[in-house]
């Protein structure tokens, strides 16, 4: 009896790990944008929603092979991120933070309403059924395994990009001293535009992984937008390492809490933990 129990607990922990990878990827783009541009994209999850629709239409409607459709979707959301920066963020770049929050909040409702008009309210899915992978007594969804691997790959690729390339170094530098970037021969407006496209591409990658597991509808952003936020805040807004750690902590609460009680309880425990941490460290685990 206790053996079986242990196996299921282990399965829950491992599933939590897989979920953590996905949550880490979700938080990555938002953290990048905040860390570099100092603006919170409240509408981040709605960009992901657009990416999910893009995969759906390119694959189901236009019969692109799934992988090509996903690459196309990443490109589309990267473009949306760039548009968002050029036409919404740039005019309010030096405005009060509350105004920046409100405009991106406006974009959230705009995208939701536009998606409802354009795509309707019925649930859509790719119709791709990925098998479960069995490992002894335990079983894992292949979609989650793929998501975990891709999320980890994305995180590592971004890390190398930010550490090892001129452009990546400039992206880190601009968040530390925007005013002297021209003295390095760097056009700050260009770096911001590239960073926004990169944040969009990360949202697009998240969309590709979510669309394997979830149905698409115009309000789907609401089901993981808030948790993405809380993870970023828990880790320390703008701190990518903190967000990474926080994603795995949150995922364990959800998975293991869900194992002992019910999935809903897992969320309840995770949010109680979040509130407790906010009392203890208001700026997040690794916040300054």
């Amino acid at each position, binding site marked *: 009896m206790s053996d079986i129990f242990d196996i299921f607990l282990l399965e829950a922990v491992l599933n939590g790990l897989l979920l953590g990878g996905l949550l880490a990827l979700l938080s990555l783009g938002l953290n990048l944008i905040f860390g570099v541009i100092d603006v919170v994209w409240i509408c981040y999850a709605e960009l992901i929603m657009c990416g999910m629709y893009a995969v759906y239409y390119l694959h189901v409607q236009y019969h692109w092979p799934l992988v090509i459709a996903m690459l196309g979707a990443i490109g589309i959301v990267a473009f949306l991120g760039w548009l968002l920066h050029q036409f919404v963020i740039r005019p309010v770049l030096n405005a009060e933070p509350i105004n920046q929050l409100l405009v991106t909040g406006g974009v959230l409702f705009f995208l939701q309403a536009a998606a409802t008009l354009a795509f309707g309210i019925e649930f859509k899915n790719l119709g791709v059924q990925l098998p479960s992978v069995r490992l002894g007594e335990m079983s894992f969804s292949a979609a989650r395994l793929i998501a975990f691997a891709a999320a980890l790959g994305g995180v590592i690729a971004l890390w190398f990009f930010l550490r090892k390339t001129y452009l990546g170094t400039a992206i880190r530098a601009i968040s530390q001293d925007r005013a002297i970037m*021209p*003295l390095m021969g760097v056009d700050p407006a260009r770096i911001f535009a590239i960073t926004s496209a990169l944040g969009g591409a990360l949202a697009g990658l998240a969309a590709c992984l979510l669309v394997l597991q979830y149905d698409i509808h115009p309000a789907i952003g609401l089901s993981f937008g808030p948790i993405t936020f809380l993870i970023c805040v828990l880790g320390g807004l703008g701190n990518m390492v903190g967000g990474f750690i926080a994603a795995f902590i949150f995922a364990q609460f959800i998975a293991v809490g869900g194992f002992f009680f019910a999935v809903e309880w897992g969320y309840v425990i995770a949010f109680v933990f979040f509130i407790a941490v906010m009392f203890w460290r208001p700026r997040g685990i690794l916040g300054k």
Partner: protein
Amino acid sequence: MLAVTELCAGYGGFQALFDASLEVNAGEAVAVIGPNGAGKTTLLRAISKLLTPSAGSLTFDGQSLARLPAHAVVARGIAHVPENRRLFPRLTAEENLRMGAYTSRSTYAERLEQVYALFPRLRERRHQVAGTLSGGEQQMCAIARALMSGPKLLLLDEPSAGLAPVVVQSIFELVRRICAQGYTVLIVEQNIRQVLKVVNRAYLLEAGRIVKSGTAAELLAAPEIQKAYLGL
């Protein structure tokens, strides 16, 4: 090499620089000296286009800088070491140097060696986060970062500010060596006695206007400078 003619500049409604004219020839080390708030930093910021001049002209190597955006000035061969060093505090020393080479990447490895030869201390500290370097090391790193672009003209804004007296000596020694290597240098300083030992010529800036110019020896000997600035 650099010709500044009747340059006016300021911040918003406040004018900090009035009809300033000066010249820097290739291979020369020139200082702009003057008290706090005279407009020295404004002058350098206008030359590197961080600030758009309201009137006057700037030519470098015979070409006007008027229409150039700030981020295109480095590629023309002007590197600016800003006031207070302004390193990127959470990047390592070497990553700061890499930012300096942003516009001239093909020569990065070669210039890195040159810069480390000039500042051996930086090689020891290269993986250290810049914010944790000492004041003198930060100033070296800031100068090295500017040299990474392979400039024809180096603008130095108060390299001795905020440093301990012993360190100030070594920074001026470094400036002397940089001049000796053939770099053309325009340096802005409050530490008048020290800087006049390093440069060939100097301009005295007071309340936004250039009021005197001459060789370093002439200015050192000028009675008004001795009285007002050297306490003789």
